[in-house]
């Protein structure tokens, strides 16, 4: 995948989706506070390539907590809770935060994590990324607040006991590909797309091994050839003295390292086997007597040392071990043998010993990371200090268990301004750009917006939103046409950045209340369906509007103001 261009991945996806459509769907939900649709395509590609049938859907932008209430039936949830976008909401640079501001921020994110994990406790796999400071302040030489924040949050994550939690270390990906290849600040400015294609490919490589773990696609055994695979040289020709796997030799040490890794893997429960064209007695002597051998006979579970073809041998190995051919990895230096297996038993994953021998241990480890699950981590971190802190936060968490409780905890405040001439460009822009929460999808130029404001019978409400995380600015607009007894809602547009917080309900309460005071008897409104605005198809019905008629699949609604039952959204404070 590393070598594919993004356009090739998109094309391949169209082909692969046909190949896997008979498989059971594997449902992945991505919750994120950054734009990550490119991740969706790359992940789909990678999983389809492995024969899975992924159905990846992306939650509402920056609605991680809200969406975590609705992940009941998915197989995996992936969370991108990015510091870049958390910190961006504050009007001050994080390095100038007071201790108090800092700890409020830290604890808010921590309790969000708690709440998210609590909501997702029944989902089979939840993937969280480590928090990374690099998008915010990459050149910090001294200890910076952002590093401190990332460090403390990561510490918190790693101490989480949730058994379904898998953590992907973003920082190790960043250090592999470099900061400048990781971020695309141009796209972040434009569309909150923070990460590059290079990053996503590398990230998906890590993520899919998590998926394999839960879908039976993991490998169980690694079968090594011997000559030029476990040691340098050909035993039959060079003899016991001629082969090299010495730590003291430049080339030999690479083979020694590979043996060290294989030995470690065998201790981790990975089956290590041999498949080599040699005299069995000769190989046995090497294992028993060669002073530089790391692997011993005890590490080898199965061995086929003979002159038969390797396809037959590997088939027998799978049969004797009673595992599928697709659970095998085969490593050999010869292109002939590798191609033979690729052709005859494509289910077997092969690795050809690289000619750049210094890269051999790395390639083996890369393969291990992706295809094996090593459970026996012996590192056990001291946890006592955190326990106290954790119980404190538990109280906090119990305070908001429902979505409503959560929403009331974030202190949403909206202010609604009428015919705000200073906002004409922004209002025009929001009508042009908004696709999801847009009931009629009418696009207006600045000029048209100005006309609405100057016309006595029209009115534009602009809605400014803020919460305890920061100020979102003008994020909704409603255009109405007024007459004596009736008001018509021409447009109701809200940025997807603030969806999922019931702000639209508070706005509706405000509008109806206002017009009731003005003795208006009814409000009419319309829903024009598009591909994008399905999420709001029931908005008017949900606010006591009655469907009057359907015209060319457009729904026209009417509300008798006297019949309106206000939405229960007291936790949203309205200023006007």
């Amino acid at each position, binding site marked *: 995948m590393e070598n594919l*261009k993004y*356009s090739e991945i998109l094309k391949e996806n169209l082909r692969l989706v046909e190949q896997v459509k008979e498989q059971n769907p594997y449902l992945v939900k991505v919750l994120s506070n950054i*734009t990550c649709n*490119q991740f969706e395509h790359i992940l789909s590609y990678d999983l389809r390539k492995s024969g899975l049938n992924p159905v990846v859907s992306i939650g509402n932008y920056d609605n991680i907590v809200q969406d975590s209430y609705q992940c009941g039936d998915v197989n995996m949830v992936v969370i991108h809770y990015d510091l870049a976008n958390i910190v961006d909401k504050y009007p001050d640079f994080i390095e100038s935060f007071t201790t108090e501001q800092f700890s409020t921020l830290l604890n808010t994110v921590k309790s969000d994590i708690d709440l998210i994990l609590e909501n997702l406790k029944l989902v089979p796999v939840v993937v969280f990324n480590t928090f990374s400071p690099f998008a915010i302040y990459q050149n910090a030489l001294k200890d910076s607040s952002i590093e401190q924040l990332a460090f403390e949050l990561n510490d918190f994550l790693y101490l989480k006991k949730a058994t379904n939690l898998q953590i992907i270390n973003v920082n190790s990906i960043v250090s592999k590909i470099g900061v400048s290849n990781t971020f695309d600040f*141009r796209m972040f400015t*434009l*569309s909150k797309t923070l990460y590059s*294609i290079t990053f996503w490919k590398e990230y998906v490589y890590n993520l899919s091994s998590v998926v394999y773990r839960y879908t039976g696609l993991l490998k169980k055994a690694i079968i090594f050839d011997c000559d030029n695979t476990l040691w340098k040289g050909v035993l039959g020709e060079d003899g016991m003295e001629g082969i090299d796997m010495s730590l003291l030799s430049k080339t030999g040490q690479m083979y020694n390292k590979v043996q060290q890794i294989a030995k470690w893997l065998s201790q981790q429960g990975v089956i290590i086997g041999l498949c080599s064209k040699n005299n069995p007695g000769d190989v046995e002597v090497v294992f028993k007597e060669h002073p530089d051998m790391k692997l011993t006979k005890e590490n080898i579970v199965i061995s086929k040392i003979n002159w038969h073809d390797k396809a037959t041998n590997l088939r027998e190995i799978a049969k004797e071990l009673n595992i599928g051919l697709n659970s095998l990895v085969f490593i050999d230096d010869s292109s002939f043998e590798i191609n033979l297996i690729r052709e005859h038993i494509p289910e077997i994953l092969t690795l050809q010993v690289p000619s750049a021998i210094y890269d051999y241990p790395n390639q083996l480890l890369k393969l291990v990371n992706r295809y094996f699950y090593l459970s026996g981590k012996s590192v056990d971190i001291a946890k006592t200090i955190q326990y106290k802190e954790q119980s404190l936060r538990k109280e906090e968490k119990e305070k908001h268990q429902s979505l409503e409780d959560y929403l009331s905890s974030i202190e949403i405040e909206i202010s609604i301004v009428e015919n705000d001439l200073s906002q004409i460009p922004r209002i025009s822009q929001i009508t042009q750009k908004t*696709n999801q929460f847009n009931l009629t999808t009418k696009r207006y130029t600045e000029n048209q917006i100005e006309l609405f404001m100057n016309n006595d019978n029209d009115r534009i409400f602009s809605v400014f939103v803020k919460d305890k995380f920061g100020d979102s600015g003008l994020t909704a607009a409603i255009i109405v046409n007024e007459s004596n007894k009736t008001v018509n809602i021409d447009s109701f547009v809200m940025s997807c950045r603030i969806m999922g917080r019931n702000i639209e309900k508070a706005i509706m309460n405000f509008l109806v209340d206002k017009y009731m005071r003005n003795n208006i008897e009814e409000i009419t409104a319309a829903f024009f369906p598009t591909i994008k605005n399905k999420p709001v198809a029931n908005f008017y019905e949900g606010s006591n509007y009655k469907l009057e008629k359907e015209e060319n699949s457009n729904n026209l609604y009417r509300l008798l103001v006297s019949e309106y039952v206000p939405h229960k959204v007291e936790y949203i404070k309205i200023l006007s």
Partner: protein
Amino acid sequence: MDKIEFKIQELMGAVFELPVGDISIESSQDNLDNWDSLKHLDLVTTIEEEFEIEFPIEEIGNLVSFKLISFVLKEQLQIEGKTY
């Protein structure tokens, strides 16, 4: 269509999930239904990747039709001193 435009056509087909034949010089945001902001991002990404250029941020919003893409892309190739 020239070589560059054939490539644009191919990339647009990949991004909008349409047969290449459905993309023409007349294609634009107005006549391609699924040309939304996310697809737009994909399109910019694939073009930049293919031609090894980087559009200035203020041009990205202008790339709303085949003709405009072709025009701005050729200009950008020239600015960056690249040939395709």
